[in-house]
């Protein structure tokens, strides 16, 4: 399976499986309406100052990671968005790639950059402005993101003049102030951003050296989340997940920042709860009779589960390039949770590891939370899902309709064989691996 399929597996799942939790995901997807069409130029600081190790592993590497994340976020929030990159130090300001929507090209050009020289902020911004002016799609809004790690040698007035020129040409500016912190640098950069700022479209973030990575700090800032209109769902939910899940807000989403998402989640949660209660009541009535049957069912589930883990390992090895370490850890954790879901009643959903791993895929995080809750309460009664999954023909038809899936693939056949009596979570996770 290609990377593109991996990204869209959730939408395929959502459209093909006929039970209630996809409604949540559907609502999640529906509110992704605020997709700003933007052309962005990222200005990299690759001066000598970037060799310092006060950000791990080095200032330059932390910067590169943050840039990779930003590029991904921008191209994902709107497929027509374009991103370009230029370096400000080295032998001089050099445009590495002009604004393009091809994420591979952007990430590739970040390799093998030489560190050295001194950053030229004014020239960098001017060249970025020029590159944006010649963008192909004139409907895109213009944005420049500057990573300012070196000390600033220009005075406030010059920077303010540059800022006004950017505002005049309706270019927004985001500044990441990190690295060197000589006196006056934060104020100068604040003045620059204030001069450009038009209706809250420009932001500045000061990142002091510390234990958390530069990218993690940036994820929760408006640079990722967009211009205060509620931005892209990707970043908003990622921010919530990275910040440790349910910190203070219900469902980890700030109702002020994203009221539609919070409402959607709350409604779906209530629906699920109502359904659970009805199902639990029914199950309690038949508890005496069903108990023995339930135990047998769960033990066979465990046996099948270990089989599933083995086959998963095989599939994972085959498609190693699709699975990062984070995702593998997440998988095992979810499997473990599903297995002892019958015993434990309070599953710690706010597990930090899980949150971090799903920082890039918040839809997965929420889906897993919902699924785990469902598994916890519903283990004694056979859920609709298992019935659906046992219908082999139905599953095969779904898989056949997935683009890029070859039904004769041996790993797929193993997967289908191990499907008997699995929980939703396993199915979901295994489908993702394909």
């Amino acid at each position, binding site marked *: 399976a290609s990377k593109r399929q991996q990204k869209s597996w959730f939408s395929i799942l959502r459209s093909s499986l006929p039970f209630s939790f996809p409604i949540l995901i559907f609502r999640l997807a529906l509110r992704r309406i605020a997709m700003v069409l933007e052309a962005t130029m990222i200005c990299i600081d690759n001066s000598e100052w970037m060799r310092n190790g006060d950000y791990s592993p080095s200032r330059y590497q932390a910067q590169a990671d943050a840039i990779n994340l930003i590029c991904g976020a921008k191209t994902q929030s709107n497929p027509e968005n374009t991103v370009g990159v230029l370096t400000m130090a080295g032998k001089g300001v050099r445009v590495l790639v002009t604004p393009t929507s091809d994420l591979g090209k952007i990430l590739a050009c970040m390799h093998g950059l030489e560190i050295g020289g001194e950053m030229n902020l004014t020239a960098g911004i001017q060249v970025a402005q020029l590159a944006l002016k010649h963008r192909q799609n004139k409907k895109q809004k213009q944005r420049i993101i500057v990573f300012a790690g070196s000390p600033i040698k220009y005075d406030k007035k010059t920077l303010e003049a540059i800022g*006004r020129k950017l*505002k*005049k*040409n*309706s270019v927004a500016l985001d500044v990441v102030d990190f690295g060197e912190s000589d006196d006056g640098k934060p104020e100068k950069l604040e003045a620059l951003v204030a001069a450009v700022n*038009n*209706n809250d479209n420009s932001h500045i973030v000061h990142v002091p050296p510390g234990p958390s990575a530069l990218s993690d700090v940036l994820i929760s800032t408006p640079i990722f989340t967009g211009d205060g209109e509620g931005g892209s769902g990707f970043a908003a939910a990622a921010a919530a997940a990275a910040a440790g899940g349910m910190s203070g807000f219900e469902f980890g989403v700030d109702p002020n920042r994203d009221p539609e998402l919070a409402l959607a989640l709350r409604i779906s949660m209530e629906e699920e709860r109502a359904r659970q209660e009805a199902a639990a009541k029914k199950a309690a009535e038949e508890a005496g009779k069903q108990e023995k049957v339930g135990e047998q069912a769960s033990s066979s589930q465990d046996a099948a589960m270990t089989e599933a883990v083995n086959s998963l390992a095989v599939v994972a090895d085959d498609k190693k390039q699709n699975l990062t370490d984070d995702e593998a850890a997440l998988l095992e954790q979810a499997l473990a949770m599903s297995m002892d879901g019958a015993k434990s009643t309070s599953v710690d959903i706010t597990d930090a590891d899980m949150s971090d791993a799903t920082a890039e895929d918040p839809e997965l995080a929420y889906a897993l939370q919902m699924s785990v809750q469902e598994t916890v309460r519903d283990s004694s009664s056979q859920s609709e899902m298992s019935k659906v999954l046992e219908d082999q023909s139905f599953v095969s038809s779904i898989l056949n309709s997935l683009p890029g899936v070859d039904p004769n693939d041996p790993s797929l056949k193993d997967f289908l064989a191990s499907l008997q009596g699995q929980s939703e979570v396993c199915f979901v996770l295994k489908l993702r691996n394909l």
Partner: protein
Amino acid sequence: MTSTASSSIPRGQVDLVEFVDWSGVECLNQTTSHPLVNALKQGSRDDDGLHLESDADEQLLIYVPFLQVIKLHSVVIVGPEEEGPKTVKLFANKEHMGFSNVSDYPPSDSTELSLDNLKGKPVTVKYVKFQNIRSLTIFIEENQGGSDVTKVQKIAFLGTTVDTTNMKDLKKIEEH
């Protein structure tokens, strides 16, 4: 012609506000609280409380595309005495101009607005240069008083339309 300058329209000309393609209208260097629509749209342009204001400096670059091809006869620009526009350059059929390339092309017409113009007297343009207009770019270079902010009360275009095929009206001919 009537004596009140603001309501005189040259004979045979039409106010072209209904032919403006609003989806493509752009203005560089406007304040968000005083945008271009205040000066262009019917209703708000006659409202004295609503005007177009410049932001970072006194220049304004306004781009107005039209739904049909038009011939432009004259332009009405109304503004306050001190902060109203003075030097105005018009560019015909040039898209997506920026402040950096206004000096690259000679304008199709340029004019200095008098106080009469600012009260509503139309400025007649070089008609021969505006026979076939799809879009108009208005560059307001400086204002009357030399202040940092330019204010424009109303912008109107007077002219005639050229009979252009409206593609939406094209219907398939029935086969016999």
